[in-house]
């Protein structure tokens, strides 16, 4: 944890209070997903793509995106979030034709290869240049191994990810 994060945490203290919400919005499922799960990036209200589960990224060349995940990040059950977690998330997602409710325009080209190059580093080898791929990672949920084993967005239970979100 960085010094800044430690100071903020100390100043803020422990989480407190319970809020009861009645949410009629049809996106409630997404709010809950986005508050319990992280993706490599988040998007601000202004539409800016910002690192989330990733610490940083760089374009190695026009078709190779290198991502470094945070070293101090872990899932809620204690399992470390590593480069392998990212590779697993991508591999699970790319199996399906339409893994996202909004539509297939969030799909990363299925010919993309995700290579783990270190404990914290993965490289996405794209078949062709795609300037939107960083934003598309907003829809790639990085989940724990236990999740993929027990639930897996319905993959494990129903043997299919199509239409299950």
């Amino acid at each position, binding site marked *: *944890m960085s010094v800044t*994060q*430690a100071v*903020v945490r100390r100043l*803020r203290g*422990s*989480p*407190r*209070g*319970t*809020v*009861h*919400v*009645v*949410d*009629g*919005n*049809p*996106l*409630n*499922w*997404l709010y*809950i*997903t*986005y*508050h*319990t*799960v*992280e993706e490599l990036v988040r*998007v*601000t*209200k*202004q*539409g800016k793509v910002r690192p989330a*589960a990733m610490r940083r990224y760089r374009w190695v060349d026009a078709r190779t995106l290198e991502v470094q995940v*945070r070293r101090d990040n*872990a*899932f*809620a*059950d204690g399992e470390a*979030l590593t480069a392998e977690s990212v590779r697993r998330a991508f591999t699970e997602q790319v199996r399906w034709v*339409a893994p996202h*409710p*909004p*539509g297939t*325009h969030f799909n990363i080209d299925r010919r993309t290869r995700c290579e783990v190059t270190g404990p914290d580093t993965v490289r996405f080898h794209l078949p062709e240049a795609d300037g939107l791929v960083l*934003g598309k990672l907003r829809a790639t*949920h*990085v*989940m*724990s191994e*236990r*999740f993929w084993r*027990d*639930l897996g*967005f*319905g993959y494990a239970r129903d043997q299919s990810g199509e*239409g*299950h*979100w």
Partner: protein
Amino acid sequence: MIDAPGPWGSGPFVLAEGHSSLDTEQAVTSEGPFACTWLQRQDRTPQVRLRANTDYWDAVRGPHLREIVFRNDLSRSEALDLVCDGEGEVDIVTEVPHAQADRVERSTQARLVCVDAVRALAGVIDRDAKGLPLHDVRARRALNLAVDRTALVRDLFGGRARPLAGLTPPTPLTALHRAPDRLRPYPHDPVRAARLWRASGGATRPLRLAAMHDWEAVAHRVAQDLRQHLGVRVEVTILHGAEELEARRRLAEKTASQGWDVLLLEQGSQTADVPPLEHPASFRSAARVGWRTGVEHPAHSSVATLP
């Protein structure tokens, strides 16, 4: 879907109880080659509880709350009663109906917070309707010119909506579309509307206007405008519960008879943080499977087909 509680992710909260996900069923949009779209239904447990993940890496983002409890066991009316007049049982209610906004503002305990919605309400027109001239662009323009959108916004939405020039709600990225000489919403012009309607041939039977139940008041107001300014008879049908899903299915599958001539339909973005990114694509794909009614039209589909 995350349809069971567990320590699945690394976010600021842990899903500790219940679930909120989507249930889906297919609507076949093409048999050769086979293509389908999904009709979504919400699948929620009566209560969903999120517990703070105190090890979350970003202390700036949170979590600030120990628990968030989503109550899905209350009707919209019960929720408003509790947030306006109760104490501690409900703290936040979203999606306050326009008709109830004043009540919240008058409440001494609740505060109304307004945000720009990423959704649009539009009328889907069946161009193939028998006995109506809706295949004629003059008739479709007449429908648009006859509806007083400003009055709709003022009287039914409490001023908390705005007429749109297209299907994409205004956002900072689409501001240019509201610049002078760019797209503008249809004005309310009853004289021109009546002239165009007559020129298109008029109707030989009542126009059937349908709407989802949330938009019942809007449907009756639109019907009133059409009757008054076009002299057309209008029959209003309000769809409830399973009827709504069935209407969406028939629209997506482009069945020959929809049971309506104009359907008031709401379209929202599922990416609340980046609607300009999603809307063009979703409307293009929706136009192929949903927003254009009637039989397949090759020229239209070629425009609507994603690259």
